[in-house]
């Protein structure tokens, strides 16, 4: 229970943010927000010892018990690691944003409400054990990401980027929901833990591959894998704290989390291993290759994030391959799972700091265009140092954390060549080759990012603002992360013991039954003659040479067409205009056309059902006798209706309508419905008064009247509806499928409801809901009428925005 409530803590705190922003405006709202992730981080840290021993925590809150849907917070090694990342990086990002966003100019209440909403959503994703609540939180991350990217909503690029990310991730989310439902059908449960325990039976199910592909679509769109990555570069329109938080450290890793979480279920499938490894590795190459094309600092980082996510994704794929090997713990494959998690931590650390530096450069110089930047080293020494540490860690240089995980990545890829399932013996050699090329480009763009910004010639005339070092508060978070990147290099095994191994045990339960069983020891130095070492040395040399000559060949990038993005743009354009054109074929603007559609469908559907079920029935028995009064009233009713049809003046028509109403009231009298008769009489009177009032104000209309011409088409439809209704009335009277519920009312009305007039008791008691909503409708109609008459918007043409 309490763990579930902690998930909701940020969103509950968000309720108070607008109030704090309005009332305590002189203190930056961020300081209050900071308390939330900081407190959560401290709490989750206290769980570390028990989780590191292989324990777990579960708590449950019922949501829709009738459908068996609940919020279940399940914390094991993997969930805890992500929760710590979310709250830890979250706290640092909030701290950074306090200095990044101006408290007077920015709409901080919006910003922090979205951010806290995201925090809840993300914690929910990584802790939910129930698939449906996981999906709910998953889409909530998409929505809060949409709101945060569009935070500066007056900019076209922001709105475009927000919509693009929403379109792609929500598409993936829906696919994933399909996969979840299939899993639910297969295993007859929505609990991930129960599904994992059933994994061996699920494999042979018909839906297995479908569920696999659908869930991967969700993961790939969220984690910006090829070809869905195109939303991430456009998402860079968000404020930089958001990019650092959502689009590098947390949200885009939700896809990785999903793949890791489902590895125990899907690892048995060769499709899974191939797809996850293959797409991941290709994304890594693609992202790193195109990072060099970018001119925008954040664009470079976006492509680098795509590439790094691909790297981690491929490692997760390799760790699933461990399922198929008898002695997986013996050979080097066991590095893969460890490397994936370890690199995930490293990436959050160095990429977070790099984004913050990009934000600082933007903030202090006014531009992120790398062609205008240069030579900032002497002006911004601290930022330069942090950027260098982050970039070197990303490039895989010692002594930074990234070096260790990059080495393990290469080890894992090389190990694939020894793997002899799924025709890996033929294609396996491709993996280390692609990994190596990707790493070379990673090396180059890391250097490109740092040195083209901070080294070279300073061009003050091109900068919108004179460059200077950032304020101290803004530097706290990036400096802290940079220090962390160094520290991790020296204590990799402590990090491994507390954070990585418990998570690995959750990903590869088929290999390890407890975190202690994960037999991986990280060392910076493996010996002289390992393949990985030579690969690393080759990366440094080739990468260094290519960076040296970068200016000579970078222009070649302009020859690559931007196929994927234009595909997306065309798709959006076509669906927009296509839907527009299609709806114009039937949306004529005539109310008559719409009524014709509705009535024709009514006739077709009702008569069709009649024919299909053979429901035509006329029961001549059991009818009430026909009396003289009835006949007279009926004639009056029909007569007044005919008068309406043929009347030339409106006044006649209205009076005839009144006559119809009074005839109906008389019917109610005859058929023993006193309440109805009373109501109908009064209503009819007031209606006539109302019509007269309206006509009193519109004298011109009632004088001259265009004669209503007979139209055959209209008459045909009208006749059809009339016949249908007669048939319905006959059939309803003749065949009764169920006995009337009225018997129940008659028995209970006096004893249980304490009333005598059954009709009124039905209204206020048995079916009170109807009445409640009815008076609601009445109120709405009243409001509508007041609005129509009192508000004269058309009179104020000048205020119309588009004119």
């Amino acid at each position: 229970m309490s763990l579930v409530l902690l998930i909701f803590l940020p969103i509950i705190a968000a309720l108070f943010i607008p109030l704090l922003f309005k009332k305590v405006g002189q203190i930056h709202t961020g300081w209050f927000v900071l308390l939330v992730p900081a407190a959560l981080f401290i709490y989750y840290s206290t769980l570390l010892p028990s989780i590191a021993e292989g324990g777990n925590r579960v708590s449950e809150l019922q949501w829709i018990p009738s459908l068996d849907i609940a919020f279940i917070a399940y914390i094991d090694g993997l969930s805890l690691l992500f929760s710590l990342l979310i709250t830890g990086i979250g706290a640092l990002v909030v701290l950074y944003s306090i200095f990044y966003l101006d408290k007077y100019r920015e709409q901080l209440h919006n910003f922090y409400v979205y951010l806290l909403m995201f925090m809840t959503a993300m914690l929910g994703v990584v802790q939910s054990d129930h698939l449906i609540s996981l999906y709910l939180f998953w889409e909530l991350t998409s929505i809060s990401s949409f709101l945060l990217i569009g935070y500066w909503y007056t900019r076209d690029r922001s709105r475009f980027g927000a919509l693009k990310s929403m379109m792609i991730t929500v598409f993936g989310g829906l696919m994933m929901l399909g996969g979840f439902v299939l899993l639910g059908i297969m295993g007859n449960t929505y609990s991930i833990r129960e599904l994992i325990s059933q994994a061996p039976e699920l494999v042979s199910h018909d839906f297995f591959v479908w569920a696999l592909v659908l869930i991967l679509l969700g993961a790939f769109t969220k984690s910006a894998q090829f070809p869905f990555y195109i939303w991430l570069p456009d998402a860079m329109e968000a404020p930089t704290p958001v990019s650092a938080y959502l689009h590098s450290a947390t949200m885009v890793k939700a896809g990785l989390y999903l793949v890791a979480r489902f590895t125990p279920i899907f690892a048995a499938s060769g499709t899974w291993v191939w797809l996850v490894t293959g797409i991941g590795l290709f994304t890594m190459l693609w992202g790193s290759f195109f990072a060099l094309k970018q001119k925008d600092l954040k664009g470079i980082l976006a492509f680098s994030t795509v590439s790094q996510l691909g790297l981690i994704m491929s490692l997760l794929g390799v760790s699933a391959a461990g399922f198929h090997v008898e002695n997986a713990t013996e050979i080097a494959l066991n590095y893969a799972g460890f490397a994936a998690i370890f690199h995930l931590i490293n990436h959050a650390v160095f990429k977070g700091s790099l984004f913050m530096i990009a934000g600082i450069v933007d903030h202090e110089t006014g531009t992120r265009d790398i062609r205008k930047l240069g030579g900032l080293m002497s002006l911004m020494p601290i930022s330069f140092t942090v950027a260098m540490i982050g970039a070197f860690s990303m490039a895989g240089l010692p002594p930074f954390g990234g070096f260790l995980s990059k080495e393990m990545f290469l080890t894992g890829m090389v190990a694939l060549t020894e793997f002899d399932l799924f025709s890996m013996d033929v294609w396996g050699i491709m993996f280390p080759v692609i990994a190596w090329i990707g790493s070379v480009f990673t090396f180059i763009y890391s250097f490109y990012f740092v040195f083209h910004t901070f080294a070279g010639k300073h061009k003050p005339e091109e900068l919108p603002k004179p460059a200077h070092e950032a304020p101290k508060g803004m530097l706290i978070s990036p400096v802290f992360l940079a220090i962390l990147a160094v520290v991790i290099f020296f204590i990799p095994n402590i990090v491994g013991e507390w954070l990585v191994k418990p998570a690995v045990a959750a990903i590869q339960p088929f290999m390890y039954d407890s975190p202690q069983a994960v037999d991986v020891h990280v060392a910076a130095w493996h010996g002289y003659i390992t393949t990985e070492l030579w690969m690393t040395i080759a990366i440094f040399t080739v990468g260094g040479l290519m960076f040296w000559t970068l200016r000579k060949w970078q222009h070649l990038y302009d020859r690559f067409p931007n196929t994927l993005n234009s595909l997306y743009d065309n798709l959006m354009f076509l669906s927009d205009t296509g839907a527009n054109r299609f709806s114009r074929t039937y949306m004529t603007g005539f109310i008559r056309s719409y009524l014709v559609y509705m009535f024709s469908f009514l006739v077709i559907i009702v008569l069709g059902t009649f024919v299909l079920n053979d429901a035509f029935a006329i029961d001549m028995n059991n009818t009430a006798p026909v009396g003289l009064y009835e006949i007279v009233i009926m004639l009056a009713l029909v007569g007044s209706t005919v008068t309406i049809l043929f009347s030339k003046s409106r006044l006649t028509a209205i009076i005839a309508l009144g006559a119809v109403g009074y005839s109906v009231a008389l019917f109610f009298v005859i058929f023993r419905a006193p309440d109805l008769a009373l109501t109908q009489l009064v209503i009819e009177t007031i209606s006539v008064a109302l019509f007269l009032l309206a006509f009193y104000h519109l004298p011109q209309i009632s004088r001259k009247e265009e004669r209503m011409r007979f139209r055959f088409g209209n008459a045909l439809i009208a006749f059809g509806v009339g016949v249908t209704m007669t048939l319905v009335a006959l059939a309803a009277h003749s065949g009764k499928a169920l006995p009337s519920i009225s018997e129940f009312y008659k028995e209970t009305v006096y004893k249980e409801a304490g009333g005598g007039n059954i009709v009124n008791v039905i209204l206020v008691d048995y079916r009170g809901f109807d009445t409640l909503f009815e008076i609601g409708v009445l109120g709405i109609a009243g409001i509508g009428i007041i609005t129509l008459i009192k508000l004269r918007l058309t009179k104020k043409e000048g205020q119309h925005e588009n004119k």
Partner: protein
Amino acid sequence: MEIIMSVVIGFLFMAAVYLMLSKSLIRIIIGTGLLSHGAHLLLLTMGGLGGESPPVVADGVSVSDYADPLPQALILTAIVISFAVTSFFLVVAYRAYQELGTDNMELLKGTEDHE
């Protein structure tokens, strides 16, 4: 009786639909009024018209042959709602005439650039 009522209901619906398909806004409003009358009678007929006494239990003494109270309750709700809707329509027509000077649906169609 129910058979004849069914025919009358059909006739009411037919007249209502014919009016609703015409061009004049005020005729459409009258048509909706007729439509609701037809619907009320339809509900009443569905429940059977043969009840001997109104659905009122006097002092706890139950009579066997009541008119069916459920359709009556439904109709009561429907009457009041249709009154609200009719008056709303009326105001729409009235305002449309005030602003645009016509109640002809063909002229009220709107143009291509009104989107």
